[in-house]
């Protein structure tokens, strides 16, 4: 009853009602490969992919399901998915088939791979990096599930059988569009059906134990996503007599997320209320969170901290929030460092201390936490919090945050480029950042461009129209004027289908 009351309070006071709340957009790409041409065939992978596809459809995912797909088609599918993922809140890829590791990278092997040794196969396969890039632009949550540790078709005594997941952004190099490689620490989870070097069981029946556990757990109502994967792991361990243990890599943001149940309503709350929504967690899950926090799990520490920052909650205790965030920050959690900086800036749970605030903003920024980088850019541009105005430094910070795909930073940078104060950047660059900012779901950008397009110079507006046209989002005249057709196209770019 308390939870229901809280949900009511949160949803109503946050200005949303059940009818007004914007529905989430969830997209999934599900692939199952069994019929390999040269590599040993697999048994349950197609069944497993169907099971997962059906489960996800039941959870309101738009699912694209492929069975026995070759490399060229798989690449096309992934590219299409990448575009669709940009305006999605959640993007999930599930792959059941052969996979292997080579040179620190993971590969998904399509049906038509014909090589007879590992290095050749890699060149005929799709890398995990490509898949990560495809989900990377989804706005809230990115999940890649690799149910691909069946039997290694190329196992030999000399092979390193470690399955290494390369999530270090530095190693993938920069992309051709100048944006940084995917950064999973912003909310990408990669789940493997088994530990590195171990085999995932195909199962005696029609489905593998991992797929069954995953399907059941995905559907569990009111189960927070972080705890969800733990439950999958526990379930698989149990089903396989402790012989198979799924693993996850990457990390989730500090925002709570629910795939199923009434709690899922909190997924669409706006920034401030969303963090507080950890409070809807059921008591048994809160217990789990407490236990994890004791072990130093930084996401658990943050969740508990955010719960205590909501004045509407009985647990309201900002001093304790600060203590919890300090622990997480000390453990190197960049989000905690940023949130702590905010509390110091505002004097919540701790006496206002601008110096400490800035110290923590810099810590978070040095850890590439985009919110912090953008805020420092803002403060340097405007000269806030006692910082001396430094346009050049500000622009550098906005560029860094924009490269991390920060929605506001991309807009800020576009604005300054349009003003002509960013050396080496043109109207096309400004338009590109505006476009990417829209695609990232920045509602303020949509509003500014719709209500106040003349804030931007004509050549920038024209360049944006061209970009929208290139993406098949706009078919009107390229004249730099933002009439109803252009505005409709802006909304489409943002993700509103009319």
């Amino acid at each position, binding site marked *: 009853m308390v939870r229901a009351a809280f949900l009511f309070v949160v949803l109503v*006071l*946050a*200005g949303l009602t059940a009818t007004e709340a914007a529905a989430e957009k969830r997209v999934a790409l599900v692939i199952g490969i069994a019929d390999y041409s040269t590599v040993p065939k697999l048994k349950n992978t197609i069944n497993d992919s169907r099971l997962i596809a059906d489960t996800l459809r039941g959870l309101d995912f738009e699912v694209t399901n492929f069975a026995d797909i070759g490399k060229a088609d798989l690449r096309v599918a992934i590219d299409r998915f990448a575009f669709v993922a940009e305006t999605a809140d959640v993007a999930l890829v599930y792959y059941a088939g052969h996979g292997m590791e080579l040179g620190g990278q993971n590969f998904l092997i399509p049906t038509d791979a014909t090589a007879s040794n590992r290095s050749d196969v890699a060149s005929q396969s799709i890398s995990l990096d490509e898949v990560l890039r495809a989900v990377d632009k989804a706005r809230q949550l990115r999940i890649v599930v690799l149910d691909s540790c069946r039997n290694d078709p190329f196992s030999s005594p000399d092979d390193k059988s470690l399955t290494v997941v390369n999530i270090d952004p530095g190693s993938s190099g920069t992309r051709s569009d100048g944006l940084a490689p995917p950064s999973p620490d912003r909310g990408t989870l990669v789940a493997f059906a088994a530990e590195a070097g171990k085999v995932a069981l195909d199962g005696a029946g029609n489905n593998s134990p991992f797929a069954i556990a995953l399907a059941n757990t995905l559907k569990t109502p009111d189960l927070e996503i972080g705890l969800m994967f733990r439950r999958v792991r526990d379930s698989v361990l149990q089903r396989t007599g402790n012989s198979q243990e799924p693993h996850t890599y990457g990390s989730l943001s500090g925002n709570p997320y629910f795939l199923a149940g009434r709690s899922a309503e909190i997924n669409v709350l706006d920034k401030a209320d969303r963090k507080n929504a950890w409070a809807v967690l059921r008591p048994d899950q809160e217990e789990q969170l407490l236990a994890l926090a004791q072990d130093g799990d930084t996401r658990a520490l943050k969740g508990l901290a955010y719960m205590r920052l909501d*004045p*509407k909650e*009985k647990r*309201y205790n*900002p001093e304790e929030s600060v203590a919890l965030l300090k622990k997480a920050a000390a453990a190197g959690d960049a989000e905690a460092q940023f949130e702590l900086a905010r509390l110091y*800036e*505002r*004097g*919540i*749970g701790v*006496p*206002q201390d601008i110096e400490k605030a800035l110290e923590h903003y810099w810590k978070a920024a040095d850890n590439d936490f*985009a*919110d*912090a980088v*953008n*805020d420092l850019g*803002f403060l340097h*541009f*405007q*000269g806030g919090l006692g910082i001396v*105005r430094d346009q050049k430094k500000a622009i550098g910070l906005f560029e860094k945050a924009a490269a991390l795909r*920060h929605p*506001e930073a991309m*807009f*800020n940078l576009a*604005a*300054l480029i*349009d*003003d002509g104060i960013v050396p080496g950047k043109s109207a096309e660059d400004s338009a590109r950042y505006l476009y990417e900012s829209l695609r990232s779901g920045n509602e*303020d950008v949509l509003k*500014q461009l719709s209500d106040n397009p003349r*804030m931007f110079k004509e050549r920038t507006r024209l360049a944006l129209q061209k970009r929208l046209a290139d993406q098949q989002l706009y078919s009107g005249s390229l004249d730099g004027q933002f009439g109803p057709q252009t505005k409709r196209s802006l909304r489409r770019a943002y993700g509103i289908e009319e």
Partner: protein
Amino acid sequence: MSKINQGLQKIAPVTIAVAMTVTSVLPAQAAVQVASDREMGITTAVPETYAMLLGPRSTLPTVMIPEFELVFSDSATSQITRVLKGATRECRALASEYRASCAAAAFKRAASAASRPDYRAARSALNKASRDLSRLVSRNADRSAPTIGSGRKKYKAVKKAAVRAVAKQAISIISETQTKLLRSSGSVKRKTHYKRIAQAVGSTKVIFRS
């Protein structure tokens, strides 16, 4: 710092600007200027409490006229503001002898709107204002005049001759309340709701914090 004080200091900021204006005529919609707030970009709501109490311009005394400024940082604060704003409209429509009583009831309703744990100090200050205003009305009551309204909105009249004096005292009660709220909520800069959007320095563009 006590939890009560901190509570107010946070998501429930109530900033009060006391505009000292010595004039006999005040524009109906006085803009509120608070220097330090401006930079912070705090939006203002001005329930014209003095107008609520004093009636039409011609009867305005030449004394300090306080005005409210509440920060729309969250729904609870805006609820309180809504109550006071609604009361302003309502009270203004009444004859001047009923207005102090109307104000007392308004503050009582605003206090009920401040029901969250961190609003304790605000609630207590608003309740006290209501009690003091009621006592003021009682002391100057016009027993021959009818009570108007019903339920929580029942208003008593003060003697016509006492209207100005009552207004002056009411203003000082409200000023005191404002000071209490201001003191307990801390300085303006500590308000949680800093500006997310700003006009970029030297530009016509706006830029955003995270």
